[in-house]
């Protein structure tokens, strides 16, 4: 144990950097994913079929493809297309596209669960469609989509560990580098696991608490 604590002390900055990068990647991905998902969800719910089609295609491709394949594709493809993305940027791109599809579906489900009378009531008092969305439909949908949205955060924290496979120095890669030096395999994988659990259980509990509050109304 003492040996482990010594090694942990030596590795503290590397682990902290990795932990921070994991959280930053997940935060950036949920931000972009939410912006993207907002557009996707609205299009899937209200657009005419020809406009809906490309969004439907996007969502289905993202949901049928493993996240790791998205990450590898985002890592390798931009270079041949003449874009230079670093591994971290490629990873955030892949996770954002994944989250966008996921959140888009969530939002579609929530929007479609709103009773049609709400939109009719909004129109009957003369709201335009953007006003209807902003003041009547989105606030209601956001409410029911909030708990699963928080859960998407858990998925992104977990998904960010896959970026270790394209050389992003997040928590898992840092852990592997440390293990490569001191061969304390169990100890450091378990330690990394505890850090992942710490973030995710907080998010998980937050999601459950919000769900209880939303469920009350």
């Amino acid at each position, binding site marked *: 144990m003492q040996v482990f604590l010594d090694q942990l002390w030596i590795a503290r900055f590397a682990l902290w950097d990795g932990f921070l990068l994991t959280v930053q990647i997940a935060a950036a991905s949920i931000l972009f994913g939410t912006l993207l998902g907002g557009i996707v969800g609205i299009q899937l719910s209200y657009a005419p079929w020809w406009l809906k089609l490309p969004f439907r295609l996007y969502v289905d491709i993202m949901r049928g493809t*493993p996240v790791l*394949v998205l990450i590898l594709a985002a890592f390798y493809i931009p270079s041949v*297309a003449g874009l230079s993305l670093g591994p971290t940027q490629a990873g955030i791109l892949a996770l954002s596209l994944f989250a966008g599809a996921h959140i888009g579906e969530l939002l579609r489900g929530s929007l479609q669960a709103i009773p049609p009378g709400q939109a009719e009531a909004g129109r009957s008092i003369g709201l335009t469609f953007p006003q209807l969305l902003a003041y009547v439909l989105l606030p209601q949908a956001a409410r029911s989509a909030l708990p699963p949205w928080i859960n998407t955060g858990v998925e992104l924290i977990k998904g960010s560990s896959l970026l270790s496979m394209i050389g992003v120095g997040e928590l*898992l890669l840092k852990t*592997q580098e440390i293990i490569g030096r001191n061969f304390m395999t169990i100890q450091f*994988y378990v330690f*990394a*696991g505890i850090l992942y*659990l710490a973030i995710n259980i907080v998010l998980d509990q937050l999601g459950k608490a919000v769900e209880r509050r939303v469920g009350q109304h």
Partner: protein
Amino acid sequence: MDYSLHFGAVWASFDKLLSGLAIGLGLAVVAVAIGTLLGLLSAFASVAPYRALRSLAALYVSLVRNLPLLVLVLLAYFALPQTGITLDKYQSFVGALALYSGAYLTEVFRAGLISVPKGVIEAARSIGLTRLQTNVSVVAPIMLRNALPSLGNTFIGMFKDSSIAAAIAVPELTFEARKINVDTFRVIETWTVASGLYIAACVVIAMLLRGLERRFPKF
């Protein structure tokens, strides 16, 4: 950008991709089969009249669902040998994925259990079925039928997660695709075909599941 599409190099290795797809499906089938047993046990534990069992089930779900699958896989493959248990890469991956899917399936089966109407259980008790007989002959069939769609979705999710076996060099679809990508530099073609294969497999599985759902009577 001067990149023109040439699928020839990818088609040349298409058999590798197909065998990789088959390996991924095999991993998922075995893992979800074991995970179903784990999930059933843990779901019944989660509604058991004993607090200790309920806590144990809750702990299992919460621990495993909040860990990245890759961490579980690396623990099983690289860390377990330190404790004297050495598994090959297939066994470690199936073990990790079984544990992982079991946590998701616990919630699937738990929701199925809760959906069985109380009155139907009382009717079974009232004709003299014991608790065990009621669970086997009445609760389990209704729960499984109600859980079938979510069970199918979980299976599709686990099949996609079989891609993570690439991290420990299991030659499944993603691993093979990455190899072709590095060997040929037909980057766009490789990942389009790999992704297409995953999507096609998911669509076929989903269709088979819809068929299965139709074959069983709806309640």
